[in-house]
């Protein structure tokens, strides 16, 4: 089996094609078909796991065209993500079976979800950056199609466009990174690049890693390209879960982890990543405070958590990043699926229209609670362990980093519990009614909650498996502070939203300016909109004007001048060239009409003239003149 590990993503592709062919007939059952593929992939991954644990690193290469190769590799990082993605995709598909009940376009939906999963697997298993980029872009396409699934909604169409374009900007940077790598090392294979890295000019290493990180900023939605992710909530909830937990945003983290050997050599890039990560972690956590849409709060929390992971990568703490990636995948998938259930039950997205869901749907409430505790970083649930790992890494690099992350961590605990209290506690705030969730929706919740709770306990073996080195023993101080901070956040949320001792509205009033700023997401979206609508489209309009009036104007001037010249030539032709001809002609006509007068019709006159002429001729002959 290990020799055919590169077949791991193929079942998903196969079922996707089957879905395309038979999806119309199968309808919701396409989900099971898809699950067949993801389960197959999962099992195949599982079957090669022992070999990988035993230390096998496999690589297979084929020629794509000319000297470009496509190839697959299997190492601990890859297998971890393969397992994670196929596992999560299986349950998301199962969930979608229930969630998408009664929707149209199911064939399209399930095919796209499977393609999405397939491309994520493709990114992970690729052994060269070009192939990763290819699947990376296909993921962009899938996100576009899935976010815009309800394309008849203008907001969905706009969000889809925004997602693709924003990530495309990042992709361009990534492509630049690829170009630098290819130009400098002459190869696109990871192992060749890493082998050549030692001889590379540090400037180019920095440039290449920054370029690749540009791609990560786009795909993993880091500041300043984070704007697409909150809007991506326009897609169906399973899609959100897929994007946030299993695919897309995680691809960026994976890529940087993959390029760790190169990143090690580029301190400037590391610093840059840390700064971006910190800005994202803190900035988006603040935005989550004022969000009112359930899924948006989760989106902001994803952004914030991704910021954590990027900081971890920037501090060369690969174990922390990957662990957090795994844990986050579980609890965020759980949160989204839970959110889907809540939305199903309450029939609204707005948290202020929810409330009292605890009583309506116990299963959802409990599982979401587990996820909330986990993300807040309260031990012993999973989030705590990985977050702690990241904080320790950051503290090693610079205590200030750690401080900022702790602040973000505090905010995380606060807004997550705020969300929980508002949605699940108290009484329903509106009369809207949804419908209960079916079994296919609840089973994934239960399974995922199990992993969200306990996956953190396996941090050490997983970290050793991935990085190959034993995790350094953490600092107790940092651990203690992080627990305290998380509990403080929980406490504050309980005070404000649980016991309602302090009025949230009052606080909002006090910090009105800040609140407006946060609600408007720091006006970054507005600035981008302004930039696109006025600068880019303006430039386009200017270019259009330039094209129509200047370039074409020159053509028209050339045309007019040519026409003018030809008119002048025509005048010259008529009055001068032709004039001469006609002058000659009229001279002949005039002369002829004069000479004609001698032609009297008198025979004898003619005869006389003939005689005279003959005489003259004779005379001339004898005169020697002829």
């Amino acid at each position, binding site marked *: 089996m290990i020799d055919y590990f590169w077949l791991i993503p193929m079942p998903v592709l196969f079922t996707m094609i089957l879905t395309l062919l038979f999806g119309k007939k199968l309808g919701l059952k396409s989900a099971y078909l898809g699950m067949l593929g993801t389960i197959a992939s999962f099992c195949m991954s599982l079957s090669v796991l022992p070999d990988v644990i035993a230390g096998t690193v496999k690589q297979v290469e084929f020629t794509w065209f000319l000297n470009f190769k496509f190839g697959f590799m299997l190492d601990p990082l890859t297998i971890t993500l393969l397992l994670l993605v196929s596992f999560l995709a299986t349950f998301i598909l199962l969930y979608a079976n229930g969630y998408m009940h009664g929707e149209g376009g199911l064939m399209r939906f399930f095919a796209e979800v499977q393609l999405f999963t397939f491309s994520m697997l493709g990114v992970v298993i690729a052994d060269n950056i070009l192939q990763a980029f290819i699947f990376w872009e296909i993921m962009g396409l899938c996100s576009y199609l899935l976010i815009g699934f309800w394309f008849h909604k203008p907001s969905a169409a706009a969000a889809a466009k925004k997602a693709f374009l924003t990530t495309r900007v990042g992709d361009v940077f990534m492509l630049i990174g690829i170009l630098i790598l290819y130009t400098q090392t002459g190869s696109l294979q990871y192992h060749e690049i890493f082998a050549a890295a030692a001889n590379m000019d540090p400037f180019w290493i920095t440039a290449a890693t920054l370029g690749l990180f540009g791609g990560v900023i786009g795909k993993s939605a880091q500041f300043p390209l984070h704007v697409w992710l909150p809007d991506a909530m326009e897609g169906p909830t399973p899609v959100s879960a897929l994007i946030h937990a299993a695919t897309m945003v995680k691809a960026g983290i994976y890529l940087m982890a993959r390029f760790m050997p190169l990143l090690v050599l580029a301190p400037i890039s590391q610093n840059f990543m840390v700064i971006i990560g910190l800005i994202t972690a803190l900035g988006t956590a603040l935005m989550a405070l004022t969000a009112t849409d359930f899924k948006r709060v989760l989106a902001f929390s994803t952004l914030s958590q991704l910021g954590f992971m990027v900081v971890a990568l920037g501090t060369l703490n690969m174990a922390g990043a990957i662990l957090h990636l795994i844990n986050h995948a579980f609890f965020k998938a759980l949160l989204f699926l839970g959110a889907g259930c809540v939305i199903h039950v309450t029939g609204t997205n707005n948290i202020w229209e929810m409330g009292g869901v605890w009583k309506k749907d116990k299963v959802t409430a409990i599982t979401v609670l587990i996820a909330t505790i986990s993300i807040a970083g309260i031990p012993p649930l999973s989030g705590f362990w990985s977050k702690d790992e990241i904080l320790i890494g950051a503290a090693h690099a610079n205590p200030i980093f750690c401080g900022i992350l702790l602040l973000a961590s505090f905010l995380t605990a606060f807004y997550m519990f705020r969300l929980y209290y508002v949605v699940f506690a108290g009484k329903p705030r509106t009369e809207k009614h949804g419908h209960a969730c079916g079994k296919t929706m609840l089973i994934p919740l239960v399974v995922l909650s199990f992993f969200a709770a306990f996956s953190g306990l396996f941090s050490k073996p997983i970290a050793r498996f991935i990085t190959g080195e034993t995790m350094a023993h953490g600092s107790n101080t940092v651990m203690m502070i992080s627990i305290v901070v998380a509990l403080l956040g929980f406490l504050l949320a309980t005070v404000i939203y649980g016991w309602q001792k302090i009025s949230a509205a009052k606080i909002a009033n006090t910090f009105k300016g800040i609140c407006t700023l946060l609600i408007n997401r720091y006006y970054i979206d507005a600035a981008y909109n302004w930039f696109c609508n006025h600068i880019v489209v303006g430039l386009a309009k200017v270019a259009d004007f330039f094209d129509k009036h200047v370039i074409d104007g020159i053509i028209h001037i050339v045309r007019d001048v040519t026409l003018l010249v030809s008119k002048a030539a025509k005048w010259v032709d008529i009055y001068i060239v032709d004039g001469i001809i006609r002058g000659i002609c009229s001279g002949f006509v005039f002369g002829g009409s004069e000479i004609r007068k001698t032609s009297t*019709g008198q025979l*004898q006159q003619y005869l006389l003239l003939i005689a005279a002429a003959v005489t003259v001729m004779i005379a001339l002959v004898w005169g020697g003149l002829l």
Partner: protein
Amino acid sequence: MLEIGLTHYLLLGAALFAIGLFGAIGKKHVISILLSIELMLNAVNINLLAFSKFLPLSNGAGEIFSIFVIVIAAAEVAIGLAIAIALYRSKGSLDLDKFNLLRW
């Protein structure tokens, strides 16, 4: 007197031709002009015969030519007179000054 040679005959022909020419130009009557033309033709015949007789290489061709000239003259007279009659019928006159039919 002088020996009569080619030049004499030719001078005679020239004189006769000149008289015919004067007639053709200077007379008014159509038939008179026809007569002048006959004179010129005779002058030509004299020349032809003279050449034929006096030039060594002529081989008598002049005589044959003269015969043809006479034939053509006969034809010409016939047609000319017919035209004169037709003219007279249509115009009532044979005064050539009055005709300018060749004027376009």
